[in-house]
């Protein structure tokens, strides 16, 4: 594979070279176990401490509020189970229809175990309706769990307002901020959020490391039990290299938050150019949206065919989330938005990063009309 035009950054990102550089010593000379009783291990413990500090700083949290995990999925699974354990008498849970599989599938499992789950709907633009949350929540709601921004459309939810409602009823408030960390500023100090998940590989750290914010004072219960790592809140020898990488990535993300406007401009140019193709539509909320994401429906053609056509040019994009792409179902997010079938199957997400260049966008805009035309010519639904 020669040049890659990587526009699939909501699936995963390139590890920043500075992150790789930060990691390397912990794959080579500093291989001690941070729990060990010798200074060779102790210096690794110090590296973990620094990483915890860096991540806390990105989230506007305290060091003691950060637990390192193995991914966003573990973070979400852990948070939801911890919230349930914290208020065992409450048997009602609230989430949304457009959550990531690692939230939705856990809630489905919990339904089988005697919990009642309300799945809040979204409108055609992918927006939540807080009135629906207010109508659903009761004194026996243990948890409100919602994403901060949707991975497929980039739509940003009004989490602080949702959190305020959760608080009113004494429910724990968990937020899946996997797509937000590094893209929008976060400040846990002034937030209603009790538990918040992030994942390293969405912000230029390696895959397989994440963090869970647990507000100080929250009665937390670990998912992985065993040793005393993470102050007893997540057992298991730490993914030291990954954690050091996440720390560095958090530090860099904080710096780059300032120039997210550039990324947004590129995204807007891409979006405008693609919407100029006939029979296309923007999926999601144009206003409350991540700066790097655009999701566009190309009517009458099929997503996988589009992706493979783009692949020929080295262009990486996606339909649905990477995690559900093993299934053949059209995106549950777009379905929840009530999109018509003509769009549902031909929607493509382009997600940019700080590495995206003007010429990346040029290439997509250059080849996409031809791809769409070719596939439409093949299609029986071609509406001409």
């Amino acid at each position, binding site marked *: 594979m020669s040049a890659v035009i990587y526009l699939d950054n909501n699936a995963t990102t390139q590890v920043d070279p500075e992150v790789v550089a930060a990691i390397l010593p912990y794959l080579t000379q500093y291989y001690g176990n*941070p*729990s*060990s*009783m*010798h*200074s060779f*291990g*102790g210096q690794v*413990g110090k590296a973990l401490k620094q990483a915890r500090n860096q991540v806390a700083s990105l989230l506007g949290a305290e060091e003691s509020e950060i637990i390192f995990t193995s991914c966003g999925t573990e973070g979400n699974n852990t948070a939801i189970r911890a919230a349930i354990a914290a208020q065992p008498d409450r048997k009602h849970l609230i989430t949304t229809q457009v959550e990531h599989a690692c939230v939705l599938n856990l809630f489905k499992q919990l339904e089988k175990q005697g919990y009642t789950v309300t799945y809040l709907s979204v409108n055609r633009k992918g927006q939540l309706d807080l009135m629906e949350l207010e109508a659903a929540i009761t004194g026996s709601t243990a948890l409100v769990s919602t994403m901060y921004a949707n991975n497929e459309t980039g739509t940003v939810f009004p989490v602080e307002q949702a959190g305020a409602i959760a608080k009113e009823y004494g429910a724990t408030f968990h937020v899946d901020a996997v797509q937000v960390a590094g893209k929008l500023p976060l400040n846990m100090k002034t937030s209603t959020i009790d538990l918040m998940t992030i994942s390293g590989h969405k912000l230029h750290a390696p895959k397989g490391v994440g963090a869970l914010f647990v507000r100080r004072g929250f009665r937390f219960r670990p998912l992985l039990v065993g040793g005393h790592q993470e102050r007893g809140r997540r057992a298991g020898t730490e993914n030291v290299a990954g954690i050091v990488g996440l720390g560095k990535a958090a530090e860099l993300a904080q710096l780059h938050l300032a120039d997210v406007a550039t990324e947004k401009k590129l995204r807007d140019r891409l979006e405008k150019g693609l919407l100029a193709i006939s029979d296309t539509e923007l999926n999601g909320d144009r206003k409350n949206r991540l700066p790097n994401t655009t999701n566009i429906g190309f009517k009458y053609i099929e997503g996988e065919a589009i992706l493979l056509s783009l692949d020929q040019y080295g262009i990486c994009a996606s339909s649905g989330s990477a995690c559900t792409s093993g299934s053949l179902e059209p995106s549950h997010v777009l379905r929840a938005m009530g999109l018509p079938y003509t769009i549902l199957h031909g929607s493509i997400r382009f997600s940019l990063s700080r590495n995206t260049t003007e010429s990346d966008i040029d290439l997509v805009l250059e080849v996409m009309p031809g791809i769409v035309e070719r596939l439409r010519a093949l299609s029986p639904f071609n509406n001409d």
Partner: protein
Amino acid sequence: MWDYTEKVLDLFYNPKNQGAIEDPSEAGVAVVFGEVGSIACGDALRLHLKIEVEADRILDARFQTFGCTSAIASSSALTEIIKGITLDEALNVSNRDIANYLGGLPEEKMHCSVMGQEALEAAIYKYRGIEVEHHEEDDGALICSCFGVSENRIRRVVI
């Protein structure tokens, strides 16, 4: 790995005043020792004092410790602190003073300094012929089994 201060490590690697004190059988000088802990607990301290009877003052102090890094450093620190002061002053030395002398101890290791204070108390009381008071509330759950210190006792002494 515990986060030990330079001072802790220094007194561990180069302890001051280790060993026992021979009774010199000098007039006006008494030698006494106080002991806490046991080998079963995993930590024990024998604190030896040489006392100037007239002035009620500690002329010399030495220690013998079976225990962890912070137990050894705490013992050594204690002997440094109490040399030259009166017994009444010594009774006011707290485990906090020992920890402070060391530039701090990890929270989980604070109790290692308690042993020093207790051995000091034991030695002075023994010298003065006072029964060591028994703290009833100290019979709580053992949390440092290497030390024989109960949670209640730690709460009482540390907090």
